[in-house]
């Protein structure tokens, strides 16, 4: 068979992404129709920048969701004779999947296109959840630091600055090593970090419903049962039902990313809370005898949501970069894993001769982060216009 021309490659790739196009069209159509009723999300569609950002992010989210339908070959399978082949090279007869390597083969003769698509799934599995956990930790510690001030604030700020003073790569090299995993340290860190979301929710419900015993018991028990179940599975790999489990090397990546992000979130939350604390409605809550946690979680936190949502988007992008960095240095994730960082690392050795295996994941990562940054920018602009 003849190799595909660049135009044909492009057409073929566009066709492969069909499920994504359909999904994007549906979501955009719905959102544009109802944008006046959708609050801040709806207003995003007033800003061109925000809409472009949202489109890019949505593209990768859907790609991650439908990756099994999009990939042309198994991202881990090596096809002999396809090593470092250029984009559009036909595969030997009898190989499963499409007749071509759309974006060529890498130095182990795997399909670059499929690896790039599969890589998005790994990013989408880790980055948003890790960022969410970092936010839970940062919020649970940042609010009391700002609210109480004094020694607690000094201590927590010192801790946060301590972690922030570590160069990230050094921290990764220290945390994400087989030796550390052998000591069990990541598990203990996970055990501590993952307690925060449960703690957060319990305090949230308790402060809100402590005047109504029935509601309080209901909310808190549901949270505890669900939370502890997930907690056992994720942090201790001891899910009694055996449904939830996280491989240890993913867990350590997850924990270190949360660990690196949480202090920054802490500082942001603390800063905003210090400002909101001086508002009259906080004083009003205090003068009617509300507890400190109600004031923090129901009076201060909801009004900090604007800047926090914006930072959340930015931070997912940053987490993606961190995951790439980990992959780039071959830390944590399995060597053959198709995540973008590892793929770039694999491809960089022959970069001057065969740039395509490294370029595809590099561009993918860049576009996702760019999309998230544009989205954050659009959200910031629109939330300020209120």
């Amino acid at each position: 068979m003849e190799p595909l021309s660049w135009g044909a490659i492009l057409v073929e790739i566009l066709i492969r992404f069909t499920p994504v196009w359909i999904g994007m069209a549906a979501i955009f159509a719905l959102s544009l129709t109802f944008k006046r009723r959708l609050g801040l999300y709806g207003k995003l569609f007033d800003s061109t920048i925000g809409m472009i950002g949202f489109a890019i992010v949505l593209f990768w989210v859907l790609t991650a969701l439908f990756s099994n339908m999009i990939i042309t070959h198994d991202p881990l399978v090596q096809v002999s004779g396809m090593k470092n082949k250029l984009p559009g090279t036909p595969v030997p007869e009898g190989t499963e999947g499409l007749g071509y390597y759309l974006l060529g083969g890498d130095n182990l003769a795997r399909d670059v296109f499929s690896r790039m698509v599969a890589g998005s799934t790994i990013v989408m599995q880790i980055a948003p959840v890790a960022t969410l956990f970092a936010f839970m930790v940062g919020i649970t510690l940042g609010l009391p630091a700002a609210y109480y001030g004094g020694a607690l604030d000094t201590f927590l700020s010192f801790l946060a600055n301590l972690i922030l003073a570590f160069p990230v790569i050094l921290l990764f090299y220290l945390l994400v090593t087989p030796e550390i995993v052998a000591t069990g340290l990541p598990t203990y860190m996970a055990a501590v970090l993952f307690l925060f979301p449960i703690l957060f929710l319990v305090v949230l419900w308790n402060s809100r419903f402590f005047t109504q015993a029935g509601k309080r018991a209901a909310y808190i028990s549901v949270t505890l049962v669900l939370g502890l179940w997930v907690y056992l599975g994720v942090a201790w790999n001891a899910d009694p039902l055996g449904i939830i489990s996280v491989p240890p090397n993913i867990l350590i990546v997850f924990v270190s990313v949360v660990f690196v992000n949480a202090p920054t979130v802490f500082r942001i939350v603390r800063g905003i809370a210090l400002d909101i604390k001086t508002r009259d409605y906080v004083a009003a809550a205090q003068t009617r005898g509300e507890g400190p946690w109600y004031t923090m979680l129901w009076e201060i936190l909801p009004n900090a949501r604007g800047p926090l949502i914006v930072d959340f988007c930015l931070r997912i992008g940053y987490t993606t970069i961190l995951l790439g960095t980990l992959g780039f240095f071959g830390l944590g994730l399995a060597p053959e894993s198709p995540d973008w960082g590892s793929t770039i690392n694999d491809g960089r050795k022959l970069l001057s001769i065969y740039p395509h295996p490294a370029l595809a994941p590099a561009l993918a990562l860049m576009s996702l982060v760019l999309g998230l940054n544009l989205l954050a920018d659009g959200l910031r602009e629109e939330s300020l216009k209120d």
Partner: protein
Amino acid sequence: MGLFILRRIVIMILTALCLTFIVFVLTNLQPNLEKLAKTQGNVRMTDEQVATWLEMNGYTDPMLSRYGQWLGLLPGWTREDAEGNVTGRCISRDVPADVAPERCGVLQGDWGWSTVLRDEVSAIIGTRLGLTGILMFWVMLLMVPMALIMGVLAGMREGSRLDRSLSTVSIASTATPEYVSGVILIAVFASSAVGLKWFKGTATSAMDGITFENFTLPVVTIALYGMGYIARMTRASMTEVMTAQYIRTARLKGVSFPNIVLKHALRNALIAPFTVIMLQIPWLLNGVVIVETLFNYKGFGWTLVQAASNNDIELLLGCSVVAVVVVLVTQLISDVGYIFLNPRIRIS
């Protein structure tokens, strides 16, 4: 003011102690030490032999005591084996037991021995840091003025076309980490596949002599990522200042636009970015590690990676100390500089 700096320095030393202790603990975990024993002694050592080796080399002391020794606050360990040979932390072939100092640690200038690069850690870090210093110098020279100009131009007239395009450029630049921009730049400017071949894809030769050809890509790669962030901060600060009342006052007393920007806005607008630039240095450290690995430029970052991936404990400790000190000193400078730049705090 003096009191303030003193307090900050005390906090800084405290932080440095905490951080180095953490690094010390993390690098001296049992698995690391066992691995070290096997690389230094014999790969096929039995567990018992490993234990003896560790015992003989002072690795069985309590963690805190070993940290004290490494720091040079506590006297170094000494052991006498069955034959009456005295070994010790401060004793080596060149320094026999009778003349060996009591303490030898970081404070005495003895940073230890690199097992991988086979040299004094202090010597390695000295040369490597010099190489990285050159790289950083060019990066700063390119990045800071560019970023400030971009930020000021964009923030000067918020919402203008210039602002829109410069902002998009800076967003794109913050979205491109070094390992991505490096790959793209090499692919475009250095790979034989495209054929531009303007620059070299490695910077190994730059260690002997810097040329435009071998040094441009690494410098640009690091500068690109940091530039966008500083530019955005500058822009934000500039737009805020440009909407301030006193700028309207200046405009309505007849000051021309260039003079408003230069005389009234700039000084106020650059206070915030100064802090950002200083705090950016720790981030540049990341970039340095990535770029030096990518371009094979054997500077500080490359050394750190080598030390970390080869279990070279003392070299890694040395690198960490330098990294932490760099971060803390820049934080100190940023705090002091902020006060100095801001008359509202300076004179009160």
